[in-house]
């Protein structure tokens, strides 16, 4: 193995990849949510927003590719770390104090991550495929909003969406500060702020993303 591969394969190397990809996904989520909020502006606002993205499609495709790579690295390494860590601690304690010395979010990263992954597959299979591969561009125009509306009127779909983004909130609550610690940025003066910022960010994302299916389910888009 070359030095780079060996470095990235070490325990800290794998965590470094988790932190880099995790923070990239954190920035992506913020942009994604801001975009989604155009749904509250009604069909014109949302369809207009998607149309604008259509204009710069080649750029979007490149971003999608990078994003896919980031997700794959994050998920692959996350599962690998989880598996290796299970092997490092095969036996459990009869009495376990984990509830006293760790947070719920930190213990459940693989669970929240896995549910988010299942959600991601469903999310791409419904919205992304519908937005990108149904009919030619002109026919598609102006129907984006109604695709969203239809899906969010399905109770199970809206329900799973809400559950998934709430779990994402827990993932972010731990993940945000964890990434800084992984980079080695744990400073007496700034780290307490980073922890708070992470929690605020996690709540904003969970509430922000969850509000949309709830709004459409209850309101039916009216």
């Amino acid at each position, binding site marked *: 193995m*070359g*030095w780079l591969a*060996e*470095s990235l394969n*070490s*325990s*800290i*190397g*794998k*965590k*470094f990849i988790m932190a880099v990809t995790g923070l990239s996904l954190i920035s992506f989520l913020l942009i994604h949510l801001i975009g989604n909020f155009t749904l509250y502006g009604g069909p014109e606002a949302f369809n207009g927003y998607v149309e604008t993205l259509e204009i710069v499609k080649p750029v979007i495709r490149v971003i999608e590719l990078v994003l896919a790579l980031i997700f794959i690295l994050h998920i692959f390494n996350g599962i690998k*770390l989880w598996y*290796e*860590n299970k*092997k*490092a*601690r*095969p*036996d*459990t*304690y*009869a*009495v*376990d*104090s*984990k509830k*006293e*010395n*760790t*947070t719920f979010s*930190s*213990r459940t*990263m693989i669970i929240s991550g896995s549910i988010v992954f299942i959600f991601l597959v469903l999310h791409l299979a419904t919205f992304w495929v519908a937005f990108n591969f149904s009919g030619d561009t002109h026919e598609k125009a102006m129907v984006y909003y109604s695709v969203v509306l239809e899906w969010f009127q399905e109770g199970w779909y809206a329900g799973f969406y809400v559950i998934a983004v709430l779990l994402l909130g827990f993932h972010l609550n*731990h993940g945000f*500060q*964890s990434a800084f*610690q*992984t*980079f*080695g*940025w*744990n*400073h*007496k003066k700034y780290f307490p702020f980073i922890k708070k910022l992470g929690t605020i960010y996690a709540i904003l994302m969970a509430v922000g993303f969850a509000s949309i299916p709830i709004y459409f389910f209850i309101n039916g888009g009216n």
Partner: protein
Amino acid sequence: MSAGNINLKLKIWRQSGMRAVGAFADYQISVSPDSSILEMLDDLNNDLEKQGKDPVVFESDCREGICGTCGLVINGHPHGPKPKIATCQLHMRHFNEGDTVWIEPFRAKAFPVIKDLMVDREGFDKIMHAGGYVSINTGGVPDANEIPIPKDVASTAMDAAECIGCGACVAACKNASAMLFVSAKVSQYSVLPQGQPEKYERVQKMVKVMDELGFGSCTNTYACEAECPKGISVKNIARLNRDFIMSKIKSNTTEIEV
């Protein structure tokens, strides 16, 4: 014994050897609130020996919280539920009449149980051999303050050096990660001028051996800091991460020979 004794139910892990299957055994004991948990186990072992039974194997040495030899998981906490003390400093007055006390060995793939409550912590020695030292020729005693070191830097190094290498961090971690231990041993040199020449080599070697020995990686749950008898801070882990990443970027070494 004295009237002040308390009666406890003990559930102690018994395992006859490394490859044997272990299980909890129940014991009933009347113990003075003034005795430490290790003294209680001594009492129990005296009784067991009188009955011709195998005593419970556990480790201890200084019995004043500085050697890091004793280490039991008591009611789910390495070194017991009281913060910032070693097992030997846990007194029975913290338990109530009729309590059940669970006593288990440290559990980690890298710390296999040798017998009962005794685990093999040689892994820590191997990590130290890989780089947990400063290579200097010891001549005469250097003059005090020959190398000026700011107070807060010295304190950071001293706080890290407080680590007694007991392994409670590994025992507490859901991943059986040794990061708190390694980070303390790296930090105690990494912040001082004397540690600079070998800074990057040290961190790469110690992490390499740590990984090879099958310790887990760090999920930053911070259980280690909460359970550490010396309160070693996870800021040391951040420093370890930083030193490791910088060493990979900046040092000329492409192959780490340990």
